[in-house]
């Protein structure tokens, strides 16, 4: 009997503490590589300080499942980095009011000794050399192999370089980790192999002395990585918190939000992990980086074509 009373009391406490309090919940589905850096904890703090009546809940998942959550109404917004998948999400009527908030570059990292001799090359040339060295038994490549955003990027790069990633899987030097970025980096480090990594995870693992891999190919057009935020269309999915989502989008694209992104990681890693994109796209349209972003991250020549915009309530 005592146990049942205790149980009832506990359930009530949990329920009151969470669901039906004064604070309105805003659920954002996001990708693991973004969440794992710790940036979103800061975003949450800053946003909730500005708007104390909202409570942001970040659900960290792969880009694919994040979009799936959103289309089922389990998230109010998505914060992801896979433009082709985002365009599909918008065409299906789910995503609206897309804004590009940040960019950075993927890195091709590998052993210091650089057995394939790729240091300083362009991404495509580097991958070709890795294939040659791999087939000669001198180098290894580790692939994420988990259908994440980074894995999608890797497959696209192999195709640009003229290789079929499905065929490469059968070759001995091409190893599939089937794991997250951290584990993949540890594996590459262990096996003296090359791999494609996002900046955040690489710097974190390097800084903590967990890996000694070196950056061989960095900032270049082919390795661009673009992060954007989208609201879930309230006309298509009922019950989403559109109002709060728009506040978050406005916050992230404001000077305050953009500065937060720009400064994240500078103190800890000696360089920023994310570069703010809003000003560049508005004021420096003709700069090289703005053109790269437009080419890779724009839909029909725009950040968000007008048929995918919804007025704020």
């Amino acid at each position, binding site marked *: 009997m005592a*146990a*049942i009373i*205790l*149980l009832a009391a*506990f*359930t009530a406490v*949990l*329920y009151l*503490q*969470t*669901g039906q309090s004064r604070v309105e919940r805003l*659920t954002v589905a996001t990708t*693991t590589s973004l969440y*794992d*850096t*710790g940036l979103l*904890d800061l975003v*949450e703090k800053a946003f909730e300080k500005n708007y104390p009546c909202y409570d942001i*809940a*970040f*659900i*960290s998942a792969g880009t694919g499942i994040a979009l799936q959550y959103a289309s*089922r*109404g*389990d998230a109010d917004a998505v914060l992801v980095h896979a433009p082709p998948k985002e365009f599909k999400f918008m065409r299906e009527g789910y995503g609206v009011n897309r804004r590009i908030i940040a960019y950075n570059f993927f890195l091709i990292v590998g052993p210091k000794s650089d057995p394939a001799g790729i240091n300083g090359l362009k991404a495509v040339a580097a991958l070709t050399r890795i294939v040659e060295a791999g087939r000669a038994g001198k180098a290894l490549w580790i692939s994420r192999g988990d259908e994440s955003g980074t894995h999608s990027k890797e497959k696209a790069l192999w195709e640009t370089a003229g290789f079929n990633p499905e065929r490469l899987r059968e070759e001995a030097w091409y190893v599939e980790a089937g794991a*997250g970025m*951290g*584990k993949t980096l540890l594996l590459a480090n262990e096996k003296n192999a090359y791999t494609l990594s996002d900046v955040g*995870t690489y710097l*974190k*693992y390097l800084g*903590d002395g*967990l890996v000694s891999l070196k950056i061989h190919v960095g900032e270049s057009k082919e390795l661009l990585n673009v992060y954007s935020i989208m609201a879930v269309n309230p006309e298509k*999915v009922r*019950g989403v918190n559109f109002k709060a989502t728009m506040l978050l989008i406005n916050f992230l694209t404001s000077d305050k939000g953009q500065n937060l992104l720009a400064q994240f990681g500078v103190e800890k890693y000696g360089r920023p992990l994310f570069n703010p994109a809003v000003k560049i796209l508005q004021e420096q349209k003709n700069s090289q980086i703005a053109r790269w972003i437009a080419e890779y991250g724009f839909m029909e020549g725009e950040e968000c074509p007008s048929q995918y915009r919804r007025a704020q309530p």
Partner: protein
Amino acid sequence: MVEAFRLLASGNPEVVEVTLRSLGVSGSATLLAASFSIPLSLAIALKNFKGKPALIGFFNALIGMPTVALGLILYLLFSKAGPLGPLHLLYNPVGIMLGQAILITPLIVSFTTSALEAVDPDVRLLARTLGASHLQEAVAVVREASSGIMLAVAASFNRAVAELGIALMVGGNIKGLTRVLTTAIALETVRGEIELGIALTVILLLIVFALNLAVNLFKRRLG
């Protein structure tokens, strides 16, 4: 490792919060599951009916239910687009609690039923000769099997507190809301915060060991 113990000793508020939530959620899941599983086991153990072996076999088989599979099913049920969407159980600790209760029900039923069946039939006979009612008879059997039942409940709590699939898929590992020990360990490891991961693992193991120790002491006292 040293860093991990420093984190433990310093009583890091996040670590404390996550630990308390794990204990609360899995503890109430165990109480909830026990509250209907023990009477159910009594009914199964004390009555003879057609299909009894099949029913027991069914619960035995469900013990091995993979937590991610149950997590996925519950996600689809609790999702806004799912049949139970209006209850707002997704991304809610109450949802994790219900999920864990469902997960461990077969374990409690199975273990409790076999503990009850192992009770010497003379106990029931004696109770009846002394003029006991059905309820009194059941109480006598439960008392006789209490150490087995305790073990079943403790094992269930261990399974609940150590599972990851449901907590991740139904809870979503939201900081300050649904983050529990196992989801925190998974996250911190991926983030490369190995020390924090170890600290949380040590806590999880301590909870499991402490509980088993308590059950053993209890059993010894029962003699």
